[in-house]
């Protein structure tokens, strides 16, 4: 047994050495470059087993193992992007921390009653979707650069987003760390991405999140109009208006909906302003 243990230790030590060696080369590689992408891929491939073993520890959460692995994979990407050789922390230690954080973050999102800001949820959903699409198309997980391309972000921005997700985990669920900072504030992406932009990313995500919520509400209402509900006469009686008025209101609302759905992308419309509403009959 001792012999097996020693062999395992040697293997682990060799892997650590190779991780750190690859990461040293990565930090020296120009960005973007093929060399950099290749190094990232090698580091990720070398450590995907770590993601699987950590994800297995969370099997009792009730979430599918594949989903936990996917969440953990984001943590690994984050670790590769942000590992600092100068800190003298082993990469596996650092990566384990971030992989666990992502998996806990994922589980928390599925089960928690804590309200996560909409822009964070939107960001998480987009990262997950981009990762899934890439995997389906290429049969392997994306590198940081490839994930960034899919999300129309450069590597620095994506790395900052992933750091922001980790910070959000810290704010929301990491009780042990919270004891040393009981009232941490969630970071904004403006803090994370200090460069000046006409449309900061968190503003865009918040507005997009509002659009998505409104669209979901719109869909809910349309389904209700066609598949359930009271009669127009009943509603007219309740509101003190005629059945005909109710019918007109419904028809006009559906016309508005159709116009909205058929409208061009606003970026194609230059300075066009929205239409003024008409009056209603009730």
């Amino acid at each position: 047994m001792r012999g097996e243990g020693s062999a395992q230790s040697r293997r682990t030590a060799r892997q650590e050495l190779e991780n750190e060696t690859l990461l040293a080369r990565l930090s020296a590689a120009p960005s973007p470059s093929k060399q950099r992408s290749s190094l990232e891929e090698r580091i990720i491939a070398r450590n995907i087993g770590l993601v699987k073993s950590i994800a297995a520890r969370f099997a009792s959460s009730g979430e599918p193992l594949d989903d936990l692995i996917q969440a953990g994979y984001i943590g690994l990407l984050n670790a590769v992007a942000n590992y600092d050789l100068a800190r003298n922390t082993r990469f596996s230690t650092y990566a384990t921390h971030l992989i666990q954080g992502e998996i806990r973050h994922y589980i928390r999102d599925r089960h928690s009653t804590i309200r996560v800001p909409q822009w964070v949820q939107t960001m998480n959903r987009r990262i997950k979707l981009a990762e899934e699409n890439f995997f389906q198309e290429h049969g392997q997980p994306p590198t940081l650069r490839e994930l960034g391309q899919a999300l129309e972000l450069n590597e620095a921005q994506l790395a900052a987003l992933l750091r922001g997700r980790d910070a959000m985990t810290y704010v929301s669920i990491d009780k042990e760390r919270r004891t040393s900072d009981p009232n941490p504030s969630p970071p904004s992406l403006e803090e994370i991405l200090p460069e000046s932009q006409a449309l900061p990313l968190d503003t865009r995500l918040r507005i997009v999140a509002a659009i998505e919520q409104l669209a979901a509400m719109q869909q809910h209402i349309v389904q209700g109009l066609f598949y359930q509900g009271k009669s127009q006469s009943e509603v007219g009686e309740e509101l003190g208006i005629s059945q005909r008025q109710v019918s007109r209101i419904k028809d006009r609302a559906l016309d508005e909906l159709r116009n909205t759905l058929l409208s061009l992308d606003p970026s194609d419309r230059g300075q066009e302003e929205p239409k003024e509403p008409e009056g209603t009959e009730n």
Partner: protein
Amino acid sequence: MKHTADVDLLSLIGRAIEELRLSIGRFEDADREAALAHLGTVVAAIDSYLERLDRDPLLRLAPIPPSEVRDGLTRIRGDLDEVIAAHDAAAP
């Protein structure tokens, strides 16, 4: 977007989405004032609608619980308010 007190929910949503898209466009054009004006219009329209939500026939035809709609719109309004406040605070 005129936020009269007689807009039904579907119309409100359709026009709010359009305003929000326009707001993104103005931000991208670096016209922050116009972008915030679009956001402010949506907030005002939601406020106006919330005052008369119980009189909207569409909610009864659907039917969608008014409390659900109120909560959803209030949440969206709050998010947009935060965006406006953040940009107001950052204004030179």
